[in-house]
């Protein structure tokens, strides 16, 4: 079935159990919606699996399950996010992404028109990133056993020779950089949560970072650590690195970029921006001597315009992250405990 004769039901209908039953209704949905928008020569092979050539070398592979609510949020949606999330995990290992797969879990009753919006957004994100979705899978669950749409993407990439980036490679004396202001994604999401709604012009920072990373690696192949501070935010990502590398980290509060609206939303809700999620930012740890060059390269890239040096790696047997406050004191920056919930005290 070609896109042209897409039945009108895709504009007005809802997902029902037949779309996951393995029969023709499912085949129509896959051809009429997924393949139509995600079109590329590898996907068009029509296999359950995709076949493609890769340059020789080490492979990088990752996956992320996306369960975001709301599905559409300022600055993105689950479709674009599911592309960016996995590309970024590959980029954080230093990999150049080659291809993606996508597994959809649809809830019975989900509007097909919304599904199409999501797939279109996913296709655009993949196109802009230059990485095709080469294979996919669709399942439908009964109403009340899902939440609209879940998308799990996986991706592979190649690792350039000589690059060895790892969360356990941080060493005392190295510099800690961040590619831009933190907390935008989490605040954009919260602004649309039922019961919390507030108005803001903050958009999710959701973006694919592999282009930025490629330029950083080209300038400084010896980058030690890259990490995207997603769930748990900057604080948790740095604690993970400190834990994996067996080091401490000292941050300078005044050097950490935070957008005024993000700051304001956090004050209102009783949240700490250090723990709020990002989807288009990275932490980079490098030799102190390389930090100026890296900052220059990052700031020259649209996704690193507000890059900053925010601290240093130190020797610490307890692997703690500590911050000098702008107030002139200091505090521990611990892992996130549980979920970060809006609070009253």
């Amino acid at each position, binding site marked *: 079935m070609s896109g042209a004769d897409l039945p009108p039901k895709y504009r007005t209908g809802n997902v029902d159990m037949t779309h996951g039953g393995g029969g023709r209704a499912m085949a129509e949905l896959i051809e009429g919606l997924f393949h139509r928008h995600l079109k590329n020569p590898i996907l068009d092979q029509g296999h359950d699996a995709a076949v493609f050539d890769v340059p020789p070398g080490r492979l990088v592979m990752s996956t992320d399950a996306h369960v975001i609510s709301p599905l559409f949020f300022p600055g993105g949606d689950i479709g674009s996010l599911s592309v960016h999330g996995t590309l970024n995990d590959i980029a954080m290992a230093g990999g150049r992404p080659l291809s993606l797969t996508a597994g959809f879990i649809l809830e019975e009753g989900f509007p097909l028109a919304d599904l199409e919006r999501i797939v279109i957004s996913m296709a655009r994100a993949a196109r802009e990133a230059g990485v095709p979705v080469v294979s996919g899978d669709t399942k439908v669950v009964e109403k009340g056993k899902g939440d609209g749409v879940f998308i799990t993407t996986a991706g592979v990439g190649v690792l350039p020779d000589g690059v060895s980036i790892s969360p356990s490679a941080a060493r005392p004396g190295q510099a800690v950089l961040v590619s831009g202001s933190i907390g935008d994604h989490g605040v954009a999401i919260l602004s649309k949560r039922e019961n919390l709604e*507030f*108005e*803001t*012009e*903050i958009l999710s920072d959701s973006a694919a970072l592999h282009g930025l990373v490629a330029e950083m690696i080209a300038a400084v192949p010896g980058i030690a650590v890259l990490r995207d501070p997603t769930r748990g935010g900057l604080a948790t990502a740095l604690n993970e690195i400190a834990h994996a590398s067996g080091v401490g980290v000292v941050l300078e509060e005044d050097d950490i970029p935070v957008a*005024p*609206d993000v*700051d*304001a*939303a956090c*004050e*209102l809700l*009783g949240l700490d921006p250090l723990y709020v999620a990002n989807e288009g930012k990275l932490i980079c740890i490098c030799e102190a001597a390389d930090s100026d060059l890296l900052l220059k390269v990052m700031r020259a890239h649209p996704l690193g315009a507000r890059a900053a040096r925010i601290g240093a790696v130190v020797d610490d047997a307890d692997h703690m992250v500590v911050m000098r406050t702008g107030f002139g004191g200091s505090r521990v920056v611990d892992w996130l405990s549980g979920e970060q919930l809006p*609070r*009253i*005290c």
Partner: protein
Amino acid sequence: MCLAIPARVVSIESDDMATVALEGIRKAVSTALLEDVAVGDYVLVHVGFALHKLSEEEAERTLQLMAEAGVLAEELEEMAAEAGA
């Protein structure tokens, strides 16, 4: 206890609802606990309610006092330093 944040009233929506702004954030809050809220007022927001108006005059005075406390301390310090010198 009692996380509460001062925010500026940017519009009055009804008898007991107003919109407040904190930077670019706008949020609807209940003004059921206050009399005579006006656009431009700063109010203390707690669990979605405006709890009290904030006196801008007093705020400035407090900041002034803090600066002066410091000045006094610094002057004394300088004097002490001079005396010691």
